[in-house]
């Protein structure tokens, strides 16, 4: 039973991609970098090149962390959802198979200035 109800009931999701004026949501998280409380919520066109999204939308948001200048997106480890993944920065989000509300996470092992006290 997908909901406790008096009769059959089907819900309508509020956040379907059609409701975003041609854009989609992508979440981008920086593993172990806890200055940022949650992954960033980015709202962009699915046709945008992944590399452009990272440079223009994600990189500026990373600046408050002292590790930001040392990050080379081409050299970090990537997860799409929970799976290891190899991105194609020249291809669009859609061609990279990045769906609406999908989370990308990048890992920068060895680079964690603010986390140092936590080790």
């Amino acid at each position, binding site marked *: *039973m997908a909901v406790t109800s*008096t009769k059959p009931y089907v819900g309508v999701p509020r956040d379907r991609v059609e409701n975003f004026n041609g854009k989609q949501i992508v979440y981008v998280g920086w593993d172990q970098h806890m200055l940022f409380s949650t992954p960033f919520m980015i709202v962009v066109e699915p046709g945008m090149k992944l590399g452009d999204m990272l440079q223009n939308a994600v990189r500026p948001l990373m600046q408050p962390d002292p590790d930001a200048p040392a990050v080379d997106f081409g050299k970090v480890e990537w997860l799409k959802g929970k799976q290891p993944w190899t991105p194609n920065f020249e291809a669009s989000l859609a061609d990279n198979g990045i769906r*609406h509300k999908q989370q990308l996470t990048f890992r920068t092992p060895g680079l964690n200035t603010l986390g140092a006290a936590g080790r």
Partner: protein
Amino acid sequence: MDMTVAKKKLGLKEKYKLLTRDLGWEPTYHNKDEVFPYVKYEGIKVHDWEKWEDPFRLTMDAYWKYQAEKERKFYAIIDAHAQNNGHLNITDARYLSALKIFLQAISPGEYCAGKGFARMGREFPGVGTQVACQMQAIDEIRHAQTQIHALSNYNKFYNGFHAFADARDRMWYCTLPRSFFDDAMSAGPFEFMIAIGFSFEYVLTNLLFVPFMSGAAYNGDMATVTFGFSAQSDEARHMTLGLECIKFMLEQDPDNLPIVQNWIDKWFWRGFRLLGVVGTMMDYMLPKRVMSWREAFEIYGIENGGALFKDLARYGIRPPKGWDDAGKALDHMTHQFMLALYQYQFGTAFHSWIPSEEDMAWLSKKYPTTFDKYYRPRWEHIKKLKEAGTPYANMGLAKLCQTCQIPTVFTEPDDPTTLCHREVEYKGETYHFCSDGCQHIFEKEPEKYIQGWLPLAAIFQAPLNGDLGAWMEWVSLADGKDNGDFAGSEDQRNFEAWRNQATSNQ
């Protein structure tokens, strides 16, 4: 000669019996299922409604008399508070943030509880239950009113109080309590009773009211202390109603046990998330602190809750599923919450601030295993950014939990350096969660939660379509007044100036 017999005066018990049991007539031209259409679909089996006892047996005339007396006292004190500039007696204007959050996030919940109990007073067939629910409905509306009235005096002088109702409906941090009550109000009557009557009133109320009211007393806020007292005498009745309901369900039929257990698991977790806000106020927003959130939870959560679940074990009830995860979160959650409130402070109708040296010393004493190790370095860095003239604001909006609707700021139960990442695929859509607890709640009733209105996603849909200025107007946030850092705020300046006027000859 005939003896005249004095007319016998009715005792309270008889009066109550007349007042209630006679209401329970047998319908003749409708069957009972048509009159009470919502008591069966949740699966709770009831064989004898007469078994639901209302130990208070309060009659309406006694109820009115008692409540009216409390109202008179309450408004006398509130008037005196207003006339004597009671708002200048608080320890510091930082304290106002706790009040603003309370008014925006918690008081509207009282109103929702009132609506919910009014409905339950109609939907339950047992007459003792009907009367008890109706009284609680009136109590809850009174709580909402007294809180709004008590805090309205602060609204004359400070920012952030003026649009609490809009904040409740639209603000991203208010959807936490809002979704809690919406979830309860859209459930059946028995689940509502577990959600509000049992989980909230019985298990969690002490954690909300006792620390908050003693925080108010410690910080010189007589207005809040007064509404606290006025509400607290109702709580004994509310807690009893919740406990009676749960025992009633468990005693009526053994098939009710798994349903009840599932609700306990769910509503404990939802309540625990909701109280994270209260914990953050306790640890960070009271200039003079009473006890830490951890200490409060140890006393009112672990000790009292533990005793309660031991008592319920004879019915086969075990402690809520999220109990251990809650324990693991205690040393982290308020710090994670406050860091989030600070970095998104451009979008809050209250002020936040970087904890002072003294605050941080207190926090490391209260959280010896976690604060210095994980959270102090972040605050120190944020302080450095501010001193360098580049104050920290996180302009990337937050990922929200589909169930409890707050930013997913919490970490893995066993790894405080990794954010909890939970996602579920349902009918081709992806949904994210802050925790296993919230994911489990979703998975039991996905058709309910996929409809969740997530306030940050809503900014990018019609009618706002991504316009942040339009968003501020829509949530009635006065930019530069209601939001931002406490340091340098109008509230800080005004409070200092007025207090100096009141305490010196300048």
